[in-house]
């Protein structure tokens, strides 16, 4: 559904999702908009189904345009086909060529005129009614949602909307045929409606986060909006900092004080936080940074998705600075991966970057409720020295590499955290032996830790392994399902733990695999290079990658799998 | 700084002795800090001279009754305690002779203060105590002068360094 400012397509789409939730469906709702703060063109990209949805589809079945202002700008993001039905208002002028060329059927729905006939009626409600009727969506839940969102405010607005939806639904009969929605099967699963960014915020709090300092940035702002209201409720603190340098360092200060801390940002902000992450790493003060990746480099395309912050997240720190990098691979996993990140950061006293992306973060979905897992951050507690005059060793060279970490206020364990290389007590040192001991210790604690089977999502078996990460995972999963129907078996390996690497686990996962396809959204193929640099792969992988803002779609992966399976 | 002495601030002999003990302790502490600073900058002879002074001040402090209860915060001398060395009155290349020259200035300042207090205090008991303290201080001045005389006078170019400043751990 698309239209320019004031058309209300986002409101209509949100109501549609709410109604779908009510009716027992699953859904994925992404959005695309122009750069204007107000009045710009916008597209609500909806996919509904009776089964869980983790990916965008190859094309849209219906494109509904309330008007055509600037909508051609989205053409590349709105793939249509001959089977697509374009519904538009005849008063909005001709359908732009770029859409006509797709060969899609075109049907006219006089949304403005129909709305005018109803006192207080709006074209977006006409559209909502028409689309619902076309796909066979039940009217009951739709009316219920209109009631929930409008009745309290204004009874007349509710009645007008109900009438408009009804009018649109009646008019739909003459628009032509389109795919019908299968009825949802009753399942004994709780469902949620949530966006990845809010999910990351909730996961953070579940993991124990009680402090957030942050600077607003697209497309991470919703993580911060969520935390700014949820943290104070749970006894935490949220601060809007003057910049990303302050954000990360405030988090480090709060974490030093014993409060698990998080900040969220996107590429440009992550670049500014890198020095702070080095301090967190060297001083062994845990901190979590959610990077909701957008198109780079520099300011890039702020509102669109790309998986191109992998290099900076893994290799961006100066010095030999191993640290944690975790990537959620679904909207629900934004919760689990962030919660796990907090647990890991606290247990390993390390910075942890959560590499989410715009497609996960800003898409709203109806999903099965994420599991309530037991990962809560906990640090190795310190005990004060009992011998008089003995100085507490904050950076004790332990077997695991993790040293006991006191909380300020604890008597007898005073120490100075330091980004300068230091001795076991934290005293600055430029000696080779101290450097070597601390480097080994900081690496050992990461590589020796038991990450369990959370390091990757592994599904299915086959001669081909599709190795992917982040928001490409959904498309890869759907492609694998389609390929299996065609007799080509492939295995999905989606990395959740990007750093440190798990060479033995990867070797096990790739055992018997004859071909590898890497799927990612990056111009340079950063993930492919990372895999080839960090892992001993049994075969040279094929690469299917593209920069943002266009998402990887299941169809193209499916096609590649079929050709690899020949 | 521009604080002026307040000769009426100390009312009793006991009070005066207590603050003098605190001053001697403070002087010892400062000399010890300077000794450590010179050890860190590898000027060990000068560090040893500061240690010698610190130990001397420890002995002087021990001659007074130990503090019972909270310390009075009276500073009759207006500015810093005269016997406590200015932490910035040193140079990393200074010689032991300079150390005693610095100590002499401090002891002489203290002596002048006691002499003035003996005349200007409005309290008879304090006046009498100040006379005794001045006499004692003259002994310290003589001792430091003797130590200076035993040490070689530094050459004119004592503060020259061919190397530029350098840092072991510049950060």
């Amino acid at each position: 559904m698309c239209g320019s400012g004031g058309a209300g397509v986002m409101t209509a789409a949100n109501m549609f999702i709410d109604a779908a939730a009510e009716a027992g469906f699953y859904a994925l709702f992404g959005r695309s908009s122009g750069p204007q703060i107000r009045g710009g063109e916008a597209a609500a990209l909806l996919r509904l189904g009776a089964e869980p949805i983790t990916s965008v589809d190859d094309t849209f079945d219906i494109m509904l345009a309330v008007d055509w202002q600037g909508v051609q700008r989205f053409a590349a993001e709105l793939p249509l086909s001959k089977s697509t039905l374009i519904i538009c208002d005849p008063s909005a002028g001709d359908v732009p060529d770029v859409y006509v060329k797709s060969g899609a059927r075109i049907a006219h729905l006089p949304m403005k005129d129909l709305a005018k006939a109803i006192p207080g009626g709006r074209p977006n409600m006409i559209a909502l009614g028409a689309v619902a009727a076309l796909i066979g969506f039940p009217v009951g839940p739709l009316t219920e949602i209109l009631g929930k969102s409008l009745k309290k405010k204004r009874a007349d607005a509710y009645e007008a909307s109900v009438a408009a939806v009804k009018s649109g639904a009646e008019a739909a009969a003459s628009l032509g045929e389109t795919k019908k929605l299968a009825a949802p099967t009753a399942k004994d699963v709780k469902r949620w409606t949530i966006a990845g960014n809010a999910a990351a915020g909730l996961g953070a709090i579940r993991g124990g986060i009680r402090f957030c300092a942050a600077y607003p940035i697209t497309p991470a702002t919703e993580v911060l909006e969520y935390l700014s209201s949820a943290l104070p409720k749970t006894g935490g603190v949220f601060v809007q900092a003057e910049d990303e340098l302050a954000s990360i360092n405030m988090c480090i200060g709060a974490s030093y004080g014993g409060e698990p801390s998080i900040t969220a940002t996107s590429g440009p902000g992550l670049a500014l936080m890198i020095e702070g992450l080095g301090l967190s790493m060297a001083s062994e003060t845990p901190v979590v940074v959610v990077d909701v990746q957008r198109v780079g480099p520099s300011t890039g395309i702020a509102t669109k998705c790309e998986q191109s912050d992998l290099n900076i997240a893994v290799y961006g720190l100066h010095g030999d600075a191993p640290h944690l990098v975790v990537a959620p691979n679904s909207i629900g996993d934004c919760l689990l991966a962030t919660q796990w990140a907090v647990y890991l950061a606290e247990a390993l006293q390390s910075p942890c970057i959560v590499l989410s992306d715009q497609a996960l973060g800003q898409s709203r979905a109806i999903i099965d409720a994420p599991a309530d897992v037991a990962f809560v951050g906990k640090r190795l507690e310190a005990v004060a020295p009992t011998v008089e005059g003995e100085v507490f060793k904050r950076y004790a060279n332990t077997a695991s590499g993790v040293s006991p970490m006191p909380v300020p206020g604890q008597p007898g364990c005073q120490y100075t955290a330091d980004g300068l290389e230091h001795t076991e007590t934290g005293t600055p040192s430029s000696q080779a032996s101290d450097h070597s001991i601390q480097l080994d210790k900081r690496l050992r604690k990461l590589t020796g830790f038991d990450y369990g089977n959370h390091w990757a999502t592994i599904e299915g078996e086959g001669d081909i392994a599709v190795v992917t990460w982040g928001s490409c995972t959904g498309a890869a999963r759907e492609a694998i399902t389609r390929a299996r129907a065609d007799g080509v078996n492939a295995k999905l390996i989606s990395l959740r733990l990007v750093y440190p690497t798990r060479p033995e686990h990867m070797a096990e996962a790739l055992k018997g695999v004859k071909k590898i396809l890497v799927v990612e959204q990056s111009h340079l193929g950063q993930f492919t290079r990372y895999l080839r640099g960090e892992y001993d792969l049994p075969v040279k992988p094929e690469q299917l990658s593209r920069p943002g803002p266009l998402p990887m779609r299941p169809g193209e992966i499916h096609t590649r799998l079929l050709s690899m399976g020949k | 700084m521009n604080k002026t002495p307040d000769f009426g601030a100390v009312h009793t002999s006991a009070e005066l002795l207590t603050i003098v003990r605190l001053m001697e302790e403070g002087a010892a502490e400062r000399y010890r800090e300077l000794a450590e600073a010179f050890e860190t900058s590898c000027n060990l002879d000068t560090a040893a001279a500061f240690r010698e002074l610190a130990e001397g001040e420890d002995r002087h402090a021990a001659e007074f009754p130990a503090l019972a209860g909270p310390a009075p915060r009276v500073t009759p001398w207006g500015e810093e305690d005269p016997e406590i060395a200015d932490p910035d009155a040193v140079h990393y290349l200074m010689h032991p002779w300079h150390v005693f020259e610095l100590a002499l200035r401090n002891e002489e300042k203290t002596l002048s203060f006691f002499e003035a207090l003996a005349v200007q205090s409005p309290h008879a008991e304090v006046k009498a105590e100040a006379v005794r303290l001045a006499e004692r201080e003259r002994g310290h001045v003589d001792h430091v002068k003797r130590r200076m005389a035993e040490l070689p006078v530094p050459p004119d170019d004592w503060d020259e360094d061919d190397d530029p400043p350098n840092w072991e751990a510049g950060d």
Partner: protein
Amino acid sequence: MSSCNTSATYTAKDFKSDVKPVWCPGCGDFAVLSSITKAFADLGLAPHETSVVSGIGCSSRIPAYTNTYGFHSIHGRALAVGQGLKLARPDLTVLVAGGDGDGFSIGGNHFIHACRRNVDLTYIVMDNRVYGMTKGQPSPTTESDWDASAMAPPGGTGMTPFHPLAIALAAGANFIARGFSGDPNGTAEIIAEAIRHPGFSFVAIMSPCITFREEQRDWKNTMRQTAIEATTDSAQAARRLMTDDGFNCGVLFRGSRNSYGKEKKAVAAVSDLDAEFAL
């Protein structure tokens, strides 16, 4: 002259660590360290409930020389670390310390916003108008015509020196004072008052660099105790600061703004948060 009694159980010495400073003999920072530890002791604080946070530079080495909890962080970011610590742990006494380059150049933005935010902590800048640790370059507070540096152009930078106290006032700092390392007792009293004063307290301490700015040894003849009482009126403080010659020591402004932040109080269990998303 002043007199007050304390019931401190810890002495200034208890606040010093066994680590020996790397500062040059004669550096003003030795005295500032003494003033800070004396202020802590005079306030009756305990080392384990006190923290010193710094950035990078000569003076920023100070946390290691105290026996409190400490954080020697990165260049310019001490105030961010310190504010985060205080907001997370309002029960701790937080003192942030550093130099003029750390605080006013690379950390200048944080300085302004820390004044505005008014978190209850004390910020001490040991100002020697030079970068010491990198061997003597001009800093934001360096006189515009000072050129005895390999990096300064002949005739100096020509840049107007930063006026930390006036900027602190304009940005909203709640307590503004100037101290001098050559007056450790007076400076200790100022620091103690700064710590007691609610909100963001800023204390600029003139602390000579006898290695790169040997002429600063003369500060002991030019610094003076200010003859005027601290004002609570920011307009009056502004007039004073803008006509100040940089040599007046003492408390110059005492504000009455409330400290930043609310009391931390959980009103919901973590599991309650699910309701917003569950169908």
